[in-house]
């Protein structure tokens, strides 16, 4: 017999995800009238972020955090915009219905993969809810902040820092170990998402709180299918969506006690990886979109910026990523300006971008004014490290060599070879498709390398404690690159491979992608 508290916890998570969808769909409907399937798939994450930022705002103006105050504004909006919302939900249900009907046309491999993905996802769900919380970072950083924010009803670390520690070993390389253990500078979005769950259920539940990561599994799986279906045939789209769920790199996030895998339950890396994927997918769509040619402002780049900003609010690694996406958009905007093709974005797109950017800037301002800056910026002046950079680069290379980065016997190899194969294939295609995404991924990896080169922490310690998670963060992005690299060769209708990049696919991707993306199921 299943324990009643397990059932209640399952119900709480399902209701939370449904609420995030409802809120996210309202936000999405406000930004764009006819969102793509990819945008709809990401609306869950948008909803979770909206609820979290709402709580942050409540904390600033002194509104108490509880389920009534959290949901009341959305209920009011729902009543005011009921016709629009009913229409949107019907549209989404129609898409799901079409998708369900297309299941009958699937080949055996796709059916097997979908069945396996369903079983694995179900197992992940049970594990996330029932397994104990033991991951070090989850305890010391993410979920501690979550229950602190929820308890005081505000995003303020004043009561938590400075920590009181009396021990001889208080510093490593001049860094306060207590801060290294807690990382007060880490962004607040993931803890706020957990805190919004606590707010809805009315109490702190550390064990169940970590299950909000399931929301991001749903987002990644659905958005992966929506995106890959727009550029690949159904079998490959299903295969990539399956990998988004079941790639062994994600085991540590959803399963425990599996030999050889670290415990990442309750940590923000998977949520960050999902935001990264969504931002990159929208970035690609913005480059191939034709909505602007039809006279409609293309919302894809706006979504790319929003998800990049959410990534920056999720983890510090998102800060360089946000700058990269912004820079790519600025360069393209500059070119269009010179060509006289630049269109002013609609106010409906500018407002949400402004909100998340204000949140990013606000958090960075908060930690700097409270002396909580990143440990990576506190020690050696970068110039002092210049003479040792070649040796440090060698040490980094040696580390990755020693963890068998190219071996397919571990999950590193699959990610590494994904990148290498996608690079070769995209290069063979002269980066005609996916160049911007590839550039963004490479620059993001470069930012990781720069951080390692200049880290004030003992290099090997830093690598040992973070490299695995960085690879986890990049795994969905590598799937994206692989899919993009194959898209010119594999049609969207059948599994066929031509000797040359299919000009119709490339041109279609350039001329009609908005329609492709809009049509999740053909």
């Amino acid at each position, binding site marked *: 017999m299943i*324990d009643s*508290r*397990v059932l209640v916890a399952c119900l709480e998570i399902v209701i939370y995800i449904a609420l995030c969808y409802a809120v996210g769909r309202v936000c999405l409907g406000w930004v764009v009238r006819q969102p793509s399937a990819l945008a709809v798939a990401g609306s869950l994450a948008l909803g979770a972020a909206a609820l979290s930022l709402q709580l942050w705002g409540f904390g600033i103006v002194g509104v108490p955090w509880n389920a009534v105050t959290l949901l009341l504004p959305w209920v009011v909006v729902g009543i005011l915009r009921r016709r629009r919302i009913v229409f949107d939900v019907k549209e989404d249900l129609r898409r799901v219905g079409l998708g369900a009907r297309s299941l009958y046309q699937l080949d055996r491999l796709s059916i097997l*993969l979908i069945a396996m993905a369903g*079983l*694995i996802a179900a*197992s992940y769900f*049970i594990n996330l*809810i*029932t*397994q*104990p*919380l*033991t991951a070090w970072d989850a*305890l*010391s950083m993410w*979920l*501690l902040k979550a*229950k*602190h924010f929820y*308890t005081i009803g505000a995003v303020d670390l004043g009561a938590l820092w400075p*920590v*009181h*520690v*009396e*021990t*001889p*070993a208080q510093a490593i390389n001049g860094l306060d*170990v*207590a801060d290294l*253990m*807690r990382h007060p500078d880490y962004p607040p979005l993931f803890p706020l998402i957990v805190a919004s769950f606590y707010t809805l259920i009315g109490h702190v*539940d*550390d*064990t169940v709180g970590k299950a909000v990561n399931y929301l991001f599994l749903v987002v990644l799986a659905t958005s992966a299918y929506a995106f890959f279906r727009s550029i690949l045939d159904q079998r*490959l789209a299903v*295969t990539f969506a*399956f*990998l988004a769920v*079941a*790639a*062994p790199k994600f*085991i540590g996030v959803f399963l425990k*006690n*599996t030999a050889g*895998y670290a415990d990442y339950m309750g940590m923000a890396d998977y949520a960050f990886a999902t935001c990264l994927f969504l931002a990159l997918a929208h970035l690609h769509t913005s480059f191939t979109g034709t909505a602007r040619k039809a006279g409609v402002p293309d919302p894809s780049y706006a979504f790319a910026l929003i998800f990049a900003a959410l990534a920056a609010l999720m983890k510090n690694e998102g800060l360089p990523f946000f700058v990269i996406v912004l820079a790519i958009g600025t360069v393209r905007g500059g070119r269009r300006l010179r060509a006289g093709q630049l269109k002013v974005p609609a106010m409906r797109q500018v407002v949400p971008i402004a909100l998340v950017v204000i949140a990013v800037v606000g958090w960075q301002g908060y930690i700097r004014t409270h002396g909580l800056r990143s440990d990576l910026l506190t020690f050696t002046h970068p110039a002092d490290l210049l003479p040792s950079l070649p040796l440090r680069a060698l040490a980094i290379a040696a580390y990755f060599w020693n963890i068998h980065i190219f071996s397919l016997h571990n*999950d590193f190899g699959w990610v590494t070879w*994904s990148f290498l*194969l*996608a690079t*070769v*294939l995209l290069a*063979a295609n002269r980066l005609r498709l996916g160049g911007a995404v590839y550039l963004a991924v490479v620059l993001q990896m470069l930012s990781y390398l720069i951080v390692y080169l200049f880290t004030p922490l003992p290099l090997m310690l830093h690598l040992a404690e973070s490299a695995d998670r960085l690879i986890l963060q990049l795994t969905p992005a590598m799937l994206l690159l*692989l899919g993009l690299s*194959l898209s010119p060769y*594999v049609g969207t209708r059948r*599994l*066929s*491979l031509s*000797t040359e990049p299919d000009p119709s696919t490339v041109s279609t991707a350039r001329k009609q992608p908005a329609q492709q993306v809009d049509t999740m199921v053909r």
Partner: protein
Amino acid sequence: MWAPVAIQGSRDRLPAVQRLRLLLPRLLPTVVLLFVFAWAVDSIIVTGGGVLAVHYRPLVRTPPAVNQFQAGDPVAQSLITISGSIPRRDRVLIVWDIDDGKTESTFWYGFVWGTFWLYPRQVTVSSYPRSAQTTTADTVIEVRRYGSARLDVAAGYFTAWEYEYPGYPVGQYRHNPDEVHPPVSGATVTVFRPNK
């Protein structure tokens, strides 16, 4: 299904580099496609194995909070147990004096676990036993090696509870005798010295 197409013409006469240039556009997508399906198969084997290795029956039959309690080591279990017995507004001093050759890591483990499970209490973590003599905290928690001497706490404190786990006796001392709550015990807590 697709298949590599034979290259037209007399390949033998072409230089190796040129042959490679002709072959690559056909081979690469094939290799990438095979790689993707191989990754899917690997995922089925590895992740499927991980999923099958989980014992679901005890997981779903036990409340998540009890699973949480049972998962930690004795120290973590003791902190979860003690947490219910300390008023939420207390200032707590944890003296973590385990000198077993890995003091530093154990200490920081104690710091992270102690501050998390005892939240929202204001926690000070110390590895100096002498901290207990000068403290003004409402509650003092002592974690020590098995067999080592008990903590010499400042005057005015009394032993509220003491638990013994393998290797880690945990003592709780309180300043105010009126606010002693029994520990919330969901599992195997051995209270061997309740002493007011």
